[in-house]
Structures are given as C-alpha cells and as structure tokens.
C-alpha cells in the first residue's frame, strides 16, 4: 500500500503547480483574497470582480516564504476581521521585531547579539507612571489577574464594551492558593512576602508585567504593557495583588 502511494505521488509531482483562486480554493475560501496584494487588505473593498486564477508554486518557496504566503495571501485568515483595539486581523499577524527574533524553532538558540537587541528594545519600550511606581488596589488587581477575557477574536470575538480585558496571569502562574493557576510561568504564590517590596523589587515586577523581555529575552510571557493589553493603573493594581500583605497571594 505504501508503494501505491509513492507511485501516485510521483505521477502527481509532474503537476506540482497549484491554482489558488476563488473557484478552486477549499470549501470556505470563496473569496478572492488569495489574488490580492498583501498590503491593502484593510482597504479592500468587498471582492466582486471575477477571481483571476493565480498560479502559485508552493514547492518553489522556502518554508518561511510559504508560511508568510499562507498567512497573508492565501485567503486562509480573515485579515479584515476587526480587533478590539481598532486594527484588523492582519495587524495581529504581522510580526514586530521582537516577535520575529523570538520565533525560534526547536533547537534554535538566540545569538548573543539578538539577545542584547531584544533586551534593549524591551527596556526602551517601558513607560513609568508619573510620580513613580505606587501599588494600586489589590482587589481590582485580583480581578484582572484572574481574568482571561479580552482581545480574543477568531470565531467568537470578545466584546469589550462594559467589560475590562484581563491580564491572563492565572493561565500561566500559580497566584494564591485558593484557586488553581497554570505552570507555564513560575509560581508567584507568596511573591511579596518572599521578595519584599523595596523599590528595586517593585521596578522589577513593573518591568516584568510591562515587558518581560527586558530580563528574559524571548520569554513566553506576553508584553502586557508594551502591547497595550494593560495600562499603568491596571499594572499597579495587579502589582498590589502580588505585593500587598493583605492580598491572598501573601496569605
């Protein structure tokens, strides 16, 4: 049976050119995005013109080039889907410099140069509250730390009207012992009690939440401040949840 497969494959190799266009694309791809240039999806008018078949040879591209093609030009993603921050799906898929450097495959390691670059970019991205870092309200911080709501789009977009987007901390961290958190990040249980709350520690925590790449280049922790998920007030509320002696994190 394996033999039959390879014969069929060998025969097919001769015609390894793929037609990507409205007509012959896959079931739900009945739009003509595939034939559109990458840059203008945001300005795209509803495509009414007859789809022009465009011959694209996937096998002639590098894996990276094909991935970019599939993401931006094959009509796979809804690039025009609105986002909560007022951009579109395309913007969620375009990589900034840190994301590009940090898309390391298995076995790939950051060069010293890249590491330094990421750390410098991250440090430069951080904006501090006027008047310095002061702990906010730990109860508000708890709400935010335990909320995964916000900015999700795909098949079921979060509606931000009337509800604040959360910090997702619980997905990756154990926080207080009253609820189960994740383990992608380190445990933060007892954080303030163990680390103390001196100015250096407060700055470290603020920086970590704002842009953790400052200390851990290419960390899997999202850049909550730098990417605009959390504002300064929200960050200091979450910090209060981590540092306040009255917070369940430190009980």
């Amino acid at each position, binding site marked *: 049976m394996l033999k039959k497969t390879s014969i069929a494959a060998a025969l097919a190799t001769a015609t*390894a050119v793929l037609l990507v266009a409205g007509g012959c694309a*896959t079931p739900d791809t009945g739009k003509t995005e595939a034939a559109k240039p990458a840059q203008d999806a945001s300005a795209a008018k509803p495509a009414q013109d007859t789809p022009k078949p465009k011959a694209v040879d996937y096998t002639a591209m590098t894996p990276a080039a094909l991935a970019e093609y599939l993401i931006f030009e094959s009509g796979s993603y809804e690039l025009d889907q609105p986002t909560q921050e007022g951009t579109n799906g395309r913007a969620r898929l375009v990589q900034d410099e840190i994301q590009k450097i940090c898309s390391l495959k298995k076995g790939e390691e950051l060069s010293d140069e890249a590491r330094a670059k990421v750390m410098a970019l991250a440090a430069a991205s951080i904006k501090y509250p006027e008047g310095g870092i002061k702990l906010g309200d730990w109860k508000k911080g708890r709400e935010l730390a335990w909320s995964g709501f916000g900015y999700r789009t795909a098949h079921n977009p979060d509606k931000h009207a009337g509800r604040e987007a959360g910090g997702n901390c*619980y997905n990756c961290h154990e926080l207080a012992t009253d609820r189960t958190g994740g383990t992608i990040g380190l445990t933060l249980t007892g954080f303030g009690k163990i680390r103390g709350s001196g100015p250096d520690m407060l700055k470290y925590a603020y920086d970590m939440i704002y842009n953790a790449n400052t200390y851990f280049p290419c960390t899997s922790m999202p850049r909550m401040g730098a990417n605009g998920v959390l504002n300064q007030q929200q960050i200091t509320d979450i910090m209060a949840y981590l540092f306040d002696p009255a917070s369940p994190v430190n009980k």
Partner: protein
Amino acid sequence: MFKKALRTLAVTGTAALIMGAQAPEDILDALARKTNNAPYLVQSPQNRMMMPDNPAYDLVEDGERLFKTPRGPKNASLEKCDFGKGPGVLEGAYVELPRYFADAGKVMDLDARLAYCMKTLQGFTDADPAVARKHGSGSDVMKLQTYIAVKSSGMPWNPPLNHPLEKAMRDAGEVMFYRRSGIMDFGCVTCHTKEGARIRASVLPNIHKPDEWTKAISWPAYRISQENVRSSQHRLIECLWQMRYPNMKNGSDASIALLSFWTDAARGAPAILPDLKR
C-alpha cells in the same frame, strides 16, 4: 446499558480487526504505560472511565448511514470517494492525511477531502448545509468524519511526505507553529512545547512527544465541556481564539499546513479514535 452495542460497533471495522480490536481506552492505557504516565495522558481518570461509553460512537453509526446512502443532486453515495488509499477504502485512510490529491491538485485534510467528494460526487455546493455545517454532533460533516476516522483507530499516524507539496505544507506548518505574533505574542510554541505544563488546571500536550501528542491530535473527539463531538479544524480555531488571532477559514491552506505539521509530529504513535476530551 448500550455499552455492549458500542463495543460491537467499535470492532466492526476491519481496522479494529487488523489491530486486534483494541478499544481507544486500551490504546490510551498502553501509551500511559509506555510513557510512565505522562501527565497529559493520565490527567483525567474520569474521562478515561467514560471512554467505553463515548457519545461519539453514536455519530459513527449515523455517519456510516450517511456515507452509504445516495444523496445530493447527483443522488450518489460517498462509496467512490478516494481518501488516498483508493475509492471507498477507509481503513487506515485518516492516519495518512493530510495528503496530496492529484484530482484536486492540492494537499487536503479529512475535512477538505470530504467536502471535495460531497461536491464532486454528490453534487452538493459550498452553500448546502450538508457541506457548510462544519460543527456540532448533529452535523453531517461531523458524523461522516467520525465514521471515517474511527476506521484508523490504533493505527500509527503516517502522513505521506513523498510529494513535494506535502513536504512544503508540512514545513510551512512548522514555521507557523513557532511563529509568534499578536497582542499576546503567542505562537503555538508558547503552550505546546513543555511536558506537563498547565494552563490553569489543564495539562497541555507537548508536540515533541509523539506518544502524548497523538492524543492531542486524535480528533474527532467528544468534548465533555462542550457536549459535542469536535474536529481538528475546530480545535485549531479554539487555539487561534486563545492566541488572539483572527478567524481562520475551515479547510484553508494555512489550516492544512498546520495540520500537516501536527500530524507529522505524532508519526508512528497510534491514533486514539474516537477520543474523549475535557
């Protein structure tokens, strides 16, 4: 009480006969032993206990009927559909998907191939509910997918990579898996490359461990939290949603590239079908 009937159903396929009629829960148990109880595989004794009574078995029965009944404008059954191993051959077909199909000129997963046959053989169009309704236990698509997939239970994942397009799609899928973007900087790599790591209380599967990754990609599976049988395409959308990515079209080339990579990553490990998940 319908446990017995279900068991009989599970072993009627030649697949099960060839593989010594191993029930999905036995395949899972064997993997758990082999991996010294990998946390992802053994995280839910309750789910493991429910597997013999998996509600997905109901879909197998309906799917078989749908498969063999002449339907659509052309009043044809799907028995001439070629899933890669010849017209009508279902045994072991699913573990060798995605693959390149010369008639369509592209790499297809189960979902795309099924839609292709429903259109070409039966004359349905993309707008027909039979093709368009992709999700939910009540949909024709999920019934058919479950029927077809179960015929590969216990067989090792073995998606072909002989054709240059199959290789190209798999390699692009790999790039996409490690590619990070979006407001949360997520790539699949963020959540699926550590063994035993948890998001909240759920243990996440590690793509680098075929013996645990096979359970991750064993769809259709009944999802207890959603009370529905779900497909690979559905799982993909759910992860993209968590990643804050835009919606992806069912059967799109990007989805098939990702599925090509994720199936290759389970190569050699036995499929657990139908599975039952959180």
